[in-house]
């Protein structure tokens, strides 16, 4: 009797334990069955985000390459693709066809999800074919696909995750092993960024004219609807009151405030009219969105076009090193031109004053390059200045100061009167080289002199674009600064910008 009673007690305890264990087991199973797929969805979402980072890193890598190459090559059709492990997908289409980066060179981001770029390709999307003398410079199309590992081959608890993230849960690798992953693809169109994209860019101070009529505006010498009739080289500035005048005369300063007091004026507007964007590198307090601490004297500006996001490198030009030249010595009496491939080259030892380039025969476009080891000083008076005929393109490198006095710089009746025809590079490396013009000077050119202090006095009228260290105007009168919008799509490529960015979410992968 006693033994039988003890056996029943043990059996009851065992049964109770089994019931409890079973209950806990079912609870745990339900927990894992219900919640683990939901947690998995979060993990899958994280991998999906990481694959986008990978794709964008691939596109950034390609952008970085072409931006680096443009510093050493002015011809975008001669970039060193092959030497950098890029090869054509189909060699039949070599001019504009697709190049892909060798697999061994593809960026790897790593991390727990093993993020890496799967494919990086570049082809030519379009070529710039506008105007009377199109550059045919390419717009590159960059496609980058990257992947990230998924935590497993199991689906999440919500089918909508699969609709959005397009995961490859059943994928296998080359050896047949399970390889669940997710990929994303971005496509970036890169367009050339030309040196002169704004009317005035300064490294430091930018002080505008303080007369009520002084203005910065724009026109387009290659568009008859945005310019007045000029020469065979193109149209001229139509006058401030003309309906053909445009509002893309932008200005920018790269100057920055001290870190201890980051907000305050970096451009002195003096109430001058600016028909364009006004950009500084910081200086605007984001907590006061309707006040623009970065610019003073904004009375003549459209405040909706003031920003503090200027962030571009300003490259300093250098004079070329010639192994041969047309002429070397003191400034000669006459200047002739060559072809685009073989321009005439004048190495002027000492200063250069007023001069005129002889026009080539009608129907021929001439090119001339001049290095001046001293100053470029055209003096004053009615005949002072520089004459560049309409069928001539001139490039000058000046190692000294530049003074245009009150002359006509590419602005008299024998000149092209178009800024693309005269480029002056200030290449002095001394502490504070100067650029100056005064009186009623009329200058039509592009000036690339990031080391120069530019000072205009009187009613100087400028057409073209300037890149200088400091820019200031004493007076201004009825003068002004007129940006030629043609400059924004021609000339030397200073870098590459993103024209568009699109994530391709439909294409079969």
């Amino acid at each position, binding site marked *: *009797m006693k033994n039988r009673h003890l056996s029943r007690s043990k059996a009851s305890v065992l049964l109770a334990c089994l019931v409890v264990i079973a209950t806990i087991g079912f609870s745990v199973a*339900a*927990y894992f069955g*219900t*919640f683990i797929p*939901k947690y998995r*969805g*979060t993990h899958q*979402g994280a991998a*999906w*985000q990481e694959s986008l980072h990978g794709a964008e890193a691939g596109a950034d890598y390609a952008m970085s390459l072409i931006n680096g190459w443009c510093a050493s090559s002015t011809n975008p059709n001669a970039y060193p693709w092959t030497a950098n492990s890029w090869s054509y*997908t*189909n060699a*039949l*289409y070599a*001019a*504009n*066809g*697709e190049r892909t980066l060798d697999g061994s060179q593809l960026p790897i981001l790593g991390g727990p999800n093993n993020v890496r770029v799967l494919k990086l390709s570049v*082809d*030519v*999307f*379009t*070529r*710039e*074919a506008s105007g009377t003398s199109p550059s*045919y410079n390419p*717009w590159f199309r960059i496609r980058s696909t990257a992947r990230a590992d998924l935590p497993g081959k199991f689906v*999440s*608890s*919500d089918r*909508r*995750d699969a*609709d*959005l*993230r397009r995961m490859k849960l059943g994928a296998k690798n080359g050896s047949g092993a399970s390889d669940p992953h997710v990929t994303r693809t971005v*496509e970036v*169109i890169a*367009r050339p960024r030309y040196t002169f994209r704004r009317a005035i860019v300064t490294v430091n101070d930018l002080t505008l004219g303080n007369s009520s009529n002084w203005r910065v505006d724009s026109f387009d010498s290659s568009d008859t609807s945005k310019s007045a009739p000029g020469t065979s080289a193109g149209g001229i500035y139509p006058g401030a009151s003309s309906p053909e005048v445009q509002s*893309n005369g*932008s200005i920018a300063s790269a100057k920055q405030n001290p870190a201890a007091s980051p907000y305050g004026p970096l451009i002195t507007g003096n109430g001058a009219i600016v028909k*364009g964007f006004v950009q500084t590198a910081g200086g605007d307090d*984001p907590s006061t*969105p309707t006040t623009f601490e970065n610019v003073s004297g904004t009375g003549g500006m459209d405040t909706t076009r003031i*920003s503090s*996001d200027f962030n571009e490198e300003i490259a300093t030009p250098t004079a070329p090193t010639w192994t041969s030249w047309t002429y070397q010595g003191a400034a000669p009496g006459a200047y002739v031109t060559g072809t685009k491939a073989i321009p005439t080259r004048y190495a002027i030892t000492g200063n250069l004053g007023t001069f005129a380039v002889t026009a080539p025969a009608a129907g021929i476009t001439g090119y001339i390059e001049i290095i001046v080891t001293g100053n470029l000083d055209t003096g004053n008076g009615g005949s002072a200045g520089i004459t560049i005929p309409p069928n001539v393109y001139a490039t000058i490198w000046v190692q000294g100061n530049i003074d245009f006095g009150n002359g006509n710089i590419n602005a008299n009746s024998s000149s092209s009167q178009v800024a693309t025809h005269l480029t002056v590079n200030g290449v002095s490396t001394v502490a504070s080289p100067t650029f100056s013009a005064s009186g009623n000077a009329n200058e039509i050119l592009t000036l690339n002199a990031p080391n120069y202090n530019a000072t205009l006095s009187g009613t100087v009228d400028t057409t073209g674009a300037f890149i200088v260290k400091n820019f200031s105007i004493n007076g201004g009168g009825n003068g002004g600064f007129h940006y030629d*919008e043609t400059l*924004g*799509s021609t000339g030397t490529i200073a870098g590459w910008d*993103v*024209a*568009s*960015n*699109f*994530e*391709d*979410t*439909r*294409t*079969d992968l």
Partner: protein
Amino acid sequence: MRPLLTAKRAAGFTLAELLVSVAITGIILGILVLAGAGINRRLWATEKFLNEVGNENRMMDSVAMDLRRAVRVSFLNGSTSTPIKDTSGTYYSINSSNTLVISIPDYYASNTPNNSAGSSYKTARYTRAALNSAATYNSNGVSLLNGTVPWSDAQMTVGGKRVTRFAPISATSDELQVRYYTGARSSSDPTVCLFRAEYPPGSTTASYIREVAEGISDARSTTLLSISGRNGGSVLRLQSSFTPVFKRTGASSATTTAYVDVNIRNLRRD
């Protein structure tokens, strides 16, 4: 006699013993029932929490994906459209009467849904294969232009800057409109969902509607999705929030909120 009496006592229970054992058993069962109900309630709350987190992530991921490639972003209330740029901290909530409208590039050869492999719906308008071989792109007087999109079809000027044109100049527009809004799944199913609808250029009829999240609003809680803008509309902030229901009374006192800041990659056209 004594042994017999002892044996009987050992074989049964007194009333007091029975009452005590029944009471203890009742207490244990009560605890188990209460614990089970509590666990069940927590499991339900946890599942709801995870569902809402999943909805929140998916909603923000989907909208952010479209915002990154957007060229216009606005809020549509009735017939009033408001571009979302500098909103000074004001958030616009997406719901049945307020629609978020995002214009993205009209990039593909077709916008008529077709999931078959290689369909025009899933193919870019300007594939490399087409550029290489189609006569349209290979009949130029200047051979260097062969194999490229014609300049006039490939670009346009926005705000003084040249940007990509995604459809030929002859097309109505090069923008595809994506709209996000909430509503019942159908006339027979009142489950509140967030939808993403695609409207081809010039069309007032959606070509494709996708359910992004379901059950975003019920008697217990609502998952909100709202948007604000700054830096001239180049940066948009998505905010999603809901109220967890871990308390016995239903809602807890605080909502949980997630934020995503999105840099728009393209120049805005609005």
